[in-house]
Structure formats: structure tokens, C-alpha cells
């Protein structure tokens, strides 16, 4: 319909991206790569919002604005997470999740 591309194609792409993020979140041990997996998941959810907005409710803009807000939340989350990662690196000389096992300051 819209551009001759069915809605399911977009959703399948977003699903594969989301579960790639899940796989990475389970297997990775480095904090930064785990953060990258979370970004992948957030991004795939954004695609879903935008596609539902465009195909199912083209007269409204809820999905569009919601993904704008999700992008802002992702940006602030990344900033705080990276500050915490740098602090952890300063205390442990490593950002491996298996080596950071103390809550000691």
C-alpha cells in the first residue's frame, strides 16, 4: 500500500533487530557493548512506533512524537551510563561485568 511495501516487512526487520539486541545483551561481558545492545533494542522499538503511526493511524502523530521522546530518553540514558562506566573503570581498571563484583567505595 504505502510505497508498495507491506507493513509486515518493516515489523519483521524491527523484530530481527530487537532480538539481535537481546542476543548481544545476554552474551556480551563488556559494559559498553551491553549498552550498544540496549541501543539496538530501543531503536527497533522506535521503528515500530513510526511504522504503526504511518500505516495504521496516518491522521495522527502520536507514534512520531513518542519516538522523538524515546530518542531523547535514549540520549540521556547513554550519557549517564557512560559516566557510570567511566567511574567503574576508574575504580576497577576494567569494565568487564564479571570483574566488577564489589560495592565498595
Amino acid at each position, binding site marked *: 500500500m*504505502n*510505497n*508498495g*511495501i507491506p*507493513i*509486515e*516487512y*518493516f515489523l*519483521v*526487520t524491527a*523484530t530481527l*533487530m*530487537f*532480538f*539481535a*539486541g*537481546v*542476543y*548481544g545483551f*545476554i*552474551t*556480551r*561481558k563488556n559494559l*559498553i*557493548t551491553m549498552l*550498544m*545492545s540496549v*541501543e*539496538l533494542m530501543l*531503536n527497533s522499538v*522506535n*521503528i515500530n512506533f*513510526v*511504522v504503526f503511526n*504511518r*500505516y*495504521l493511524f*496516518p*491522521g*495522527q*502523530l502520536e507514534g*512520531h*512524537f513518542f*519516538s522523538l*521522546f524515546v*530518542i*531523547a*530518553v*535514549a*540520549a*540521556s*540514558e*547513554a*550519557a*549517564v551510563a557512560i*559516566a557510570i562506566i*567511566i567511574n567503574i*573503570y*576508574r575504580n576497577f581498571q576494567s*569494565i568487564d561485568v564479571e570483574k566488577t563484583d564489589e560495592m565498595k567505595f
Partner: protein
Amino acid sequence: MSGNQIMFIVFSAMIVIFSILTVTSRKILRAAVFLLFVLISTSALYFMLNYQFLAAVQLTLYAGGIVVLIIFSVLLTSHIDEKFESPALLKRVYAAIASILGAVLVITTLLNNTFVPGTEAAKDVNMNLIGNSLISWGEQGYALPFELISILLLAAMIAAIVVAKKIKTK
């Protein structure tokens, strides 16, 4: 096959391939660059859906901001040519089973669902409309989430500075 469909196939293939490479690459800087490719292809999908403003925000904030932040912290915390040891086989198998099962479940659900396409005329999303929606309230107004996001950004900025500040050790 129209040009639109060819472009969609190229971009979605790029998204799938590079997101899998992002989570499997053993060099961290390469993983960050693959993530950048995923985010740029996503913004190309937004352009194809005619949401130009959202695509520009995606390019500047995600591809320009977050990836640069991630690359900086990679450079601060690890050696460039350091290779991760690959995760234990059992862990990889379990993770692959979990994610493939989840993907199959979601894809079968959404292929069996019938989506009812909207019949209203598509809205032309121009800057005027976006700006007016962000500062109006009531129907189609987003003033409250806009203010909340501004407070959240301020709080995140202060928190990032405070957390990353070097504390003098005695």
C-alpha cells in the same frame, strides 16, 4: 519491482546484517561502527516513510551524538586492537536459542495478525505542525512530555557531570 522496494530491501538487509555483526564482532571499535551503520539505515527508513524531521533527529542525535559518545568511551577504557575472547559455547547456544525462539514467536504472531490500515488522509508533517504540537496542549498537544523531557535532559546532564567527576582520594 519499484525503486522504493529495492531501496527498502537494501536498507533492511543492512539493518539486519549490521545489527547481527554489532553483537557478534569481537573488536569493540568495529562493533561501534556497525552500530553506526544500523542507525543510519534506520534513519533512511524514516526518510522512506516521509518523516523527514524524525530522520534528521535520528541522524544528528543517534548517529552523531550517541555513537560518538560510545566511541569516546571505548577509546578511554580499552585498547584499540584488543580482541574479546569469544563467549562460552554454552552461553552462546542458550542466547541464540532464546533470541531465535523469541523472534519466531513474534514473527508468527505478527504475520497471523491482520492490520487494518488507516483510512484518514495522511498528515503532511512539516516543521510548523511539529513546533505547534510541541507547545500546545489538549488534543494533539505534547507540551507536558516536552517539558518532562527537558527536565530529564537537565537532570541527566548534571548527573553525568557529577558521576564522572574525579573525586580526590585521600
